[in-house]
Each structure stands twice: as structure tokens, then as C-alpha cells.
């Protein structure tokens, strides 16, 4: 890693941007998934499920 | 069938040209844009004449796209779109009539006015005719690509900026070939006819595809 040559800054910046963009995407999708899961669980606990309480896996 | 087609065409032409129709607004907007450019670039006539075709094309593109969101919205609001959907005329032909009326009231005047506005950006005399010609064959493509976007956003209460965002990337080929055909009249290695014929092909293809896509979008929105 020490020998990235004269353009090390650009290479590291490129990989940092990849980590930031993909990390942000992963975080966004994961949090959305969790929020919907919680909303669904809350609704089903109140007995709003149409399928007689059979939860989604 | 052609009676219904002509009726829609006539109605839209009448709506656009009578008071409050806003058919002339695109032309005024075009003029305003072309006047604004030298204020941004400076009054250097050499520079302006070199990029003149590009300025005119960009102006025409924006002037066409800005007003397009009203193409189907008025009909959607007052219910005439439901009548058109229910009529015996295929929806594709109705869209074709409306697109044609839009082109006759915006694209055609823009193309005819382009040589006059060309004077403002010191367009050389030999480039006047090519610019007007490319706009004449290129603006139908803009109208019909735009018609698809207008059909997709017909039921939105706040259309506005979404239509240009959807449609502008799709107009890239028209812009490229329109400007390069106009520029070829100013010299360069490309003969005029090559980009001009591709531009004609693009226009004809969007005439068909845009009409079909717009009609499909209107059907989905029911």
C-alpha cells in the first residue's frame, strides 16, 4: 500500500468515494428495510393483518 | 375517422392561437433566451457567430420543452381527455393530432423566426438557411419526445419542472445532429447532408415512437 506512486491521492480518493457512495446506499436501503419491518410488525400486532396473523418471513 | 382527427387538430390550433392560448409565448421565450446569451458571453461578434447555431438550437429546445406540460393537462382537467379516450378514434391518432398542433404553433414559428434571431448573434448569411432547415425538420422530434413526457405527467397537479427533467436527456441526439448539421454550413469536414438526414430519420422515428408511448401513457393513467 505504501507504493502507490505519485498519484496515490487520486487512487485513495477514488476508493474513498466508492466506499462513501456504496456505504450510503447500503445504509439507506438497510434503514428503509428496518423501518418498514417495524411499521409492519406494529400494524400486525394491533391485529390489522388480513391473513389471520400469519406474518411475513 | 379523419374527421375526428381534423377536429382535434383544429380545436388545438384554435385554442393555441386565440387569446389566452399562449401559442405565441414560446416565440417570445425563444427571443428572450437569445437576447440573454450575449449578456452572459459578452458582445464579441466573432464568438457569437461561431456558436450562433448552438444558441439558436438550445433556445428552440428550451422554448419547446417549457410549455409542453400543458399539452394534455388542460384536457385532463376539463374531462375532454376522457371523451377522446372513449371515442372511436384510436388514441394514437388523437395524440398525433395534438402533437402536430403543438408543432404547428411552436416548432414551426420557431424555425421561421430563427433566421431573424440569427441576425442578433451575427450568424453568417450562408448559415441562415441551414439553421432554419434543421430546426424545421428537428423540432417535430422535440414536440413528440415531449408529448410522451407530457402524457406521463398529465395527471400531476404540479407538473412544471419534472417534464424537462424527464425529457431533456432524451433530446441529446436531436441536439447533436441539429447543431452539427447547422455548423457544417459554417465550414468543417462534415458534409451538410449526413447529419441532416440522420436528423430527419430521428424526427420520423420519434413521430412514431413518441406517439405510441404517449398514447400508452395516457391509457395507463385512466
Amino acid at each position, binding site marked *: *500500500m505504501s*507504493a*502507490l*506512486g*505519485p*498519484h*496515490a491521492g*487520486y*487512487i485513495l*480518493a*477514488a*476508493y474513498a*468515494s*466508492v466506499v462513501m*457512495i*456504496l456505504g*450510503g*446506499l447500503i445504509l*439507506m*436501503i*438497510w434503514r*428503509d*428495510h428496518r*423501518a*418498514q*419491518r417495524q*411499521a*409492519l410488525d406494529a*400494524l*400486525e400486532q*394491533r391485529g*390489522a*393483518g*388480513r391473513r389471520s396473523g400469519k406474518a*411475513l*418471513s | 375517422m379523419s374527421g375526428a382527427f381534423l377536429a382535434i387538430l383544429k380545436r388545438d390550433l384554435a385554442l393555441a392561437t386565440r387569446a389566452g392560448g399562449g401559442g405565441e409565448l414560446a416565440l417570445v421565450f425563444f427571443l428572450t433566451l437569445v437576447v440573454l446569451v450575449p449578456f452572459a458571453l459578452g458582445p464579441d461578434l466573432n464568438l457569437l457567430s461561431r456558436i450562433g447555431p448552438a444558441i439558436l438550437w438550445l433556445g428552440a429546445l428550451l422554448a419547446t420543452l417549457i410549455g409542453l406540460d400543458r399539452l394534455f393537462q388542460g384536457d385532463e382537467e376539463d374531462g375532454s381527455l376522457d371523451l377522446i379516450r372513449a371515442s372511436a378514434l384510436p388514441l394514437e391518432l388523437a395524440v398525433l393530432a395534438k402533437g402536430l398542433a403543438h408543432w404547428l404553433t411552436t416548432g414551426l414559428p420557431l424555425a421561421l423566426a430563427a433566421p431573424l434571431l440569427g441576425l442578433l448573434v451575427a450568424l453568417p448569411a450562408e448559415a441562415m438557411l441551414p439553421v432554419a432547415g434543421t430546426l424545421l425538420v428537428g423540432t417535430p422530434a422535440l414536440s413528440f419526445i415531449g408529448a*410522451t413526457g407530457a402524457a*406521463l*405527467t398529465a395527471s*400531476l397537479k*404540479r407538473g412544471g419542472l*419534472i417534464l424537462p*427533467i*424527464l425529457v*431533456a*436527456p*432524451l433530446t*441529446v*441526439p436531436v441536439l*447533436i*445532429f441539429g447543431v*452539427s448539421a447547422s455548423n457544417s454550413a459554417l465550414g468543417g469536414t462534415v458534409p451538410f447532408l449526413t447529419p441532416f438526414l*440522420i436528423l430527419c430519420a*430521428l424526427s420520423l422515428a420519434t413521430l412514431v*415512437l413518441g406517439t405510441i*408511448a404517449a398514447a*400508452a*401513457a395516457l391509457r*395507463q*393513467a385512466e
Partner: protein
Amino acid sequence: MASLIELANPTRFMHLSSRLLPWLVGAAALLLAVGLYLAFFVAPADYQQGETIRIMFVHVPAAWLALMFYSMMAISALGTLVWRHPLADVAQKAAAPIGACFALVCLITGALWGKPMWGTYWVWDARLTSVLVLFLIYLGIMALWRTLDDPSRAGRAVAILTLVGFVNVPIIKFSVDWWNTLHQPASVFRAGGPTIHPAMLWPLLILAVGFTLLALALHLVAMRAEIMRRRVRTLTIFEAERLDRLTAEAAI
């Protein structure tokens, strides 16, 4: 075909995807780790481009994924319009932000690669410009999703836009090529075998597969979230109607 019909059932999809996800994430993490190790410590520097060739290992897979996700969206759009497949517009909606992110990664890494190689962050060359236009189309599709609130109607409208864009992408590519070409010619899948050094090809392929698996895993999670969002929506409406009925009965 039977399995496809089974998959069409959202409940069945939720079940299968929850079993598939750990494997997908594990394989993606493994391949990405191996690929990055090879890319940084094993692959030699290019004799022309020096160490900056290491940017290629993320730039090329990102470009490929941006295109692949758009193709997937076009297929989903057909599924929405022709077969009215219940999962098709879910798949399409979940794919748009992922494809847009990979297009953005491709653009940014391309710019950071271009600065040391060409001396400028951005050149208006054919390929970069095409990816930029593709990114704009992605943004338009996401904007349309946000403005239409009824999911099934939005799905059909976006499907039409996606297909129109899909027809347009090759035309845009052709016209942008015509307009300007400055990039190096395609060198990985050229006829007559790859021309890049095998020591570079291996990390590239491993990383490409790793990023693809990661993107597919993200797509599955986003689809699951979207299915649950729709179920929450329907259940909320049901619940509101039930409460409405209860108060109406109590009033009598």
C-alpha cells in the same frame, strides 16, 4: 416456469429472499475482499498508466452494473406493462437508486482517473458523456417515482419512461460517439481474446462478480422493503376503514 410463477407471489418471494440473502452477502463480501487484495497487492502497475490502473478495478464494474441495472429495469418494465407481474414494478423501483449510485461511482472514479492521466477531471469523451446521460435518465425516473403517489399507477408510468429511455440509450450512445471519440477502445471483451494482462484481468473479474453480487443483494433488500411498504400502506388503509366503521356503528 413453475418456479417463476411461484416467485410471482410476494409472500413466497419474501420467504425465498430471506433464505438467499445471507449467502449472497457472504459471497459478495468474500469476493470483494479477495478482489481488493489482488487489486492492491498482487496486480502489477500498468507500464503506461502506472499505479492509477488500480482505479480501473472499481470503475469498470461500476459502468457495467449501471448498464446492467438499466437493462433489468427495462425487462421489469416489460413485465409491468405486458404481464402485469406483481413483482415487476417492485423490482423496477428498487433497481433505480442502485443503478444511479453505480453510474455516479463510475463518473467519479472516471474523473479521478482522468485527472492524472489526461490532466483534467472531465473530458467530454463519448463513453463518459453517455454514462452521464444515463445518470440523468436514472434521476428522471427516480423523480417520476417520487411525484406519483399511487404505487401501481406510478409503476406503469415509470415503465413507459424506462422503455422509452431504453430505446434511446443506444441512439444516444451512437450520436455521442459520432460527436466525439477520445477514449481508449474497449479492451476487456474484444474479439480475439482479452488484451489486458492476466494479472490484472483476474482481480477485475473477481471484483466485477463481487460488486454484482453486492448489488443483487442490495436489490433484494430494497425489494423486500418496497413490498413491506406496500403492505403497510394497504393495512393502514384497511385499519382506517375498520376504525371508521367502528365509530359509525358506535354512533348508531
